[in-house]
């Protein structure tokens, strides 16, 4: 098995190395670069699916294996290794499948770009890093993968490095992620201190002792916190950075400066879900940390609701999808917050398919529109781009949760879990996530109608060139549309209520009588998946989704004049949303400028005035001043020297005589 897992992880890396270092040579070239990287990722995708299948059939056992000792210091041993269990297998399959689709799509999307080889090298490197992250059996390697995907994200957001906005966005993304990683690293340090190891297996068993001993830590004097809660929150701060939760979400919309394929791969389907994966992986810790779960629930619910609101006022097609991603990540986080980890992973998976689809469809539109991203200049694309149109419709229906599309099952399960949760924050969270359903439907179909229906608002030149995009672009759309439509109905039973998520590392993912999705499980058990669909029509979410679509239809197709009036009437609210709650202003003008100001003060006052001016040059001056006085003694006249020598001699002799 070790060989198999190594092949899965390393074959994309090999492709990345070949394309990256030799892509510009004659032998490899542009074509060779996409062949090697696609071959590498395809191999790892096929093998990942094989592993997933093996787990479903029960032929493969969960296994943790060490590869080598990274470092040994004192009593601490840091090892690199793999942990492959059902959770990992799902992540591996999702990552490599979406990655493969994006690789193929890139052939069309980046066709004329001079950085073609570099791009393929980066996305293959990303796939490797992400696999290292999900396959890790220890916190060290997790952190390596965690930061490595951040690095590749940095490189890809700034892929078009001559654009000022892109190089600003990539720095912003990296730095905000570093704020999250700051918490994450402290969490890891806490784990090492309290559990004595970074290996998952050891940590998950030791943490129980820490919990039972009710160990506390006093970070702020006079306030004793349970260690497990503290660890949970510190680790989650890392997840807030990577999975773009409020207040560390601001980098994700700006990351849209990168080429669209990576928005689909990194900033929708895989990397941003790393935080969700991490919390699920750490479920044995979080199950002992109720306060941390409460914190997670609130953060997730706020993200789901507020980011959806901002999505309503965006005019850039990619930014709408980006805010939608933020909001959906909030939903996943909510699921984590109510201990429904398997539901979070389920939504992560369906979301990976339909959101990658929506991004790639948006990219297809952008190609057709000659790199125009403003929806106000689109409209009526339905007749020019039938494949993009239909696949977008599938993606949108899945996103807003209309049965029987995949998103319905995952999102409805989340809402149901919140509904049945015993968490003290569940009431508030429930209102926020249910309201979020209407908002999601509204912004999604606002975008859908603005782009594909209504009057054609583009200029004549663009219009005359409009046509469906080439096969390398539409094929991934179709291949992603299929799971977006059907994956939910197929896997909800085994994934949520079967014994799929079992194994030594996944105890907390089991569904038992106390689980918030227990009721849903019984429903499906008795009436099957159809029962869930039928029952859903007696609950608000589906109706809210439908009314969201209707509202969008009315405001943007039927009666567009009303939209302007509404905007004027609610101009204050609109302004708040356009300003995105002023988070950017706070960070850029507050923290970034503030940091530079403090740095400048420390430098000019601390270093230059006090240390150099007072201490260094001051002592130099003092020496100078002293020597100025002493200098008077050194007159240069011989008799002065002779005279002082005689006096000195007399003094010395006197001294000796007395002694």
């Amino acid at each position, binding site marked *: 098995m070790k060989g198999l897992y190594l092949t899965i992880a390393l074959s994309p890396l090999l492709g990345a190395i070949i394309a990256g270092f030799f892509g510009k040579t004659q032998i490899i070239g542009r074509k060779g670069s996409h062949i090697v990287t696609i071959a590498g990722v395809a191999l790892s995708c096929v093998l990942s699916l094989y592993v997933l299948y093996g787990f479903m059939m029960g032929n493969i056992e969960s296994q943790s294996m060490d590869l080598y000792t990274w470092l040994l*210091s004192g009593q601490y041993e840091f090892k690199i290794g793999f942990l492959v269990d059902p959770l990992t297998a799902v992540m591996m399959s999702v990552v490599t499948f979406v990655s493969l689709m994006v690789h193929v799509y890139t052939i069309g999307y980046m066709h004329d770009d001079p950085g073609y080889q570099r791009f393929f090298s980066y996305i293959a490197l990303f796939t490797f890093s992400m696999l290292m992250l999900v396959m890790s059996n220890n916190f060290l390697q997790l952190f390596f993968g965690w930061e490595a995907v951040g690095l590749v994200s940095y490189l890809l957001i700034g892929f078009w490095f*001559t654009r000022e906005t892109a190089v600003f966005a990539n*720095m912003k993304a990296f730095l905000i992620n*570093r704020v999250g990683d700051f918490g994450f690293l402290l969490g890891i*340090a806490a784990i090492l201190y309290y559990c004595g190891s970074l290996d998952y297996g050891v940590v998950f068993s030791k943490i129980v002792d820490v919990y039972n001993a009710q160990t506390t830590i006093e970070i702020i004097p006079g306030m004793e916190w349970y260690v497990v809660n503290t660890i949970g929150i510190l680790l989650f701060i890392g997840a807030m950075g990577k999975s773009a939760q409020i207040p560390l979400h601001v980098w994700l919309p700006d990351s849209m400066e990168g080429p669209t394929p990576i928005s689909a791969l990194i900033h929708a389907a895989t990397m941003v879900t790393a935080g969700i994966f991490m919390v699920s992986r750490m479920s044995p810790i979080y199950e002992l940390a109720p306060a941390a779960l409460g914190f997670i629930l609130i953060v997730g619910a706020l993200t789901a609701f507020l980011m959806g609101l901002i999505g309503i006022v965006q005019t850039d097609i990619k930014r709408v999808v980006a805010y939608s991603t933020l909001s959906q990540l909030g939903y996943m986080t909510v699921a984590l917050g109510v201990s429904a980890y398997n539901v979070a992973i389920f939504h992560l998976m369906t979301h990976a398919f339909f959101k990658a689809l929506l991004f790639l469809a948006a990219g297809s539109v952008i190609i057709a529109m000659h790199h125009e991203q403003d929806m106000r200049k689109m409209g009526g694309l339905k007749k020019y781009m039938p494949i993009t149109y239909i696949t977008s419709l599938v993606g949108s229906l899945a996103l807003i949760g209309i049965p029987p599309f995949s998103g319905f099952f995952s999102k409805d399960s989340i809402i149901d879990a919140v509904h049945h949760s015993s968490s003290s924050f569940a009431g508030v969270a429930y209102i926020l996530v249910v309201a979020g359903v209407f908002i999601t439907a509204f912004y999604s179909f606002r975008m859908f109608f603005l782009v594909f229906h209504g009057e054609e608002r583009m200029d004549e030149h663009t219009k005359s060139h409009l046509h469906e995009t080439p096969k390398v672009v539409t094929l991934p759309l179709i291949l992603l549309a299929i799971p977006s439509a059907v994956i939910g109905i197929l896997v909800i039973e085994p994934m949520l209520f079967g014994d799929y998520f079992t194994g030594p590392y996944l105890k907390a993912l089991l569904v038992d009588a106390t689980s918030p999705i227990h009721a849903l499980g019984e429903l499906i058990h008795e009436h099957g998946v159809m029962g869930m669909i039928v029952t859903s029509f007696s609950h608000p979410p589906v109706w809210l989704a439908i009314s969201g679509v209707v509202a969008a239809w009315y405001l943007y197709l039927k009666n567009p004049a009303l939209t302007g009036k509404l905007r004027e009437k609610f101009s204050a609210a609109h302004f708040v949303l356009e300003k995105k709650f002023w988070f950017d202003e706070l960070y850029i003008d507050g923290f970034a400028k503030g940091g*530079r100001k403090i*740095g400048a003060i420390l430098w000019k006052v601390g270093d230059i005035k006090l240390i150099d001016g007072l201490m260094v040059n001051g002592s130099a001056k003092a020496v100078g001043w002293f020597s100025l006085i002493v200098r008077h003694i050194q007159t240069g006249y011989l008799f002065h020297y002779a005279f002082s020598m005689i006096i000195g001699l007399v003094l010395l002799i006197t001294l000796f005589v007395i002694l």
Partner: protein
Amino acid sequence: MSDWLLSLVIWLPIVGGVYVMLTGHKDSGRARQIGLAVACVTFVVSLSLYTGFDSTTASMQFVEKASWVSSFGIYYHLGVDGISMPLIILTTFTMILVLLAGWDVIKKKPEQYIAAFLIMEGLMVGVFAAMDAFLFYVFWEGMLIPMFLIIGIWGGPNRVYATIKFFLYTFLGSVLMLVALIYMRLQPDINSFEIAAFYNLNLSLTEQIFIFLAFLMAFAVKVPMWPVHTWLPDAHVEAPTGGSVILAAIMLKIGGYGFLRFSLPISPLASQELDWLLIGMSLIAVVYVGLVALVQKDMKKLIAYSSIAHMGFVTLGFFIIFSIMTPDGSINIKEAALGVEGAMVQMISHGFISAALFLAVGVMYDRIHSREIADYGGVANVMPVFAAFAVFFAMANSGLPGTSGFVGEFMVILASFNANFWIAFLAATTLILGAAYSLWMIKRVILGKVVHDHVEKMEDLNRRELILMVALAIPVLVFGIYPDPIVEVMHVSVENLLQHISTQLTVAR
């Protein structure tokens, strides 16, 4: 061969340097070749220190001892352990790069330039290998002379101010150290300058504090620690590229080495008494100096400040050990080792990364003769290969896992958490600050559009420069992925050191 191996590593470059100086003025091409050959041979010879090293013992290896000034008990006594051996190899490795870096850039008296570096190499190795305190002092002072000359002769326009500042700072520290050494030599139960003999002096706490402070002046200036750090940015800015590389990669490490070899084992009580001071200064280095680095306009100054911030982890790792105690008041060696070894890894890694960053600035400086960030922008457009290395080393500088820059900081932060949450918290701010100043510089220098005409004319790396970059990228990556080989050789020495300190603490109580 092991009987005179260390002497060979010390004297080969010194003799080679003198030879180049005396004969090289006629044919500078030949002087360069001889110089490089000497450096390469020295490196290869020094590698046998690693291959022949026995990592199961804490006692000194490759020992040589001969009487030097017998009436004062001064010996020519050399030897290495797991702490000094990696630093010696770092020195001999870096010297090859330094000579290559100045290859066709130094036009003024190249043979003397090469000679200065070679002689300095021998003296620096001597510092790490000396087991006699007086011999150490001679090498310590001696190595400064070539450095003054390098900055003073081949330096920038403001070189005289920088040299004097550098000289005064380091000299003041050195003199106090000499006083401390002589004081210890004059103790009744001692008859030599052996460093090891100083370890077992029964000094009172007051005596130890004075000795500790005297050493602190010498070593804190070298590291440099806040607030005696301001000479470093000035020295770097004026020094030629090679000088900066040696300064950052090796000379700063001598300060760190001093703490391990002298301060901690000779004055353990004082070290424990004053650890709050050292930890405080280290954390100020990380946070305060990190913020100062953010606002620098000169690339070399920025990297210099970044060096100070990174060296903060070294001193933090050393002095955190007194907070990692067992209930009975001795040091918890198995846990504290993480801090000391992390600090050592940080020193070695910083040697590679800072060398690479200064070389990268040198590469750009050689093209348009400016170090100002504002004079660049969009370099990636004209120098794509160089840009890839610049981004890589900037990432390493900001401690990206998978590069060596991560390992030391990671270990020290983990060890700090053991001591106190807030120490780890402040140390971990480097994650944000380090990335901020490194990447902001990358953004302004490497990325973006070309806005200046002179940037348009910059050519990508030539073969020599490419070799330099690759030669540094490899260890940064390899030790990031697999750091165990570096740490493995130092385990026994570090644990022995900690054991000694711990015993002294318990005995005193």
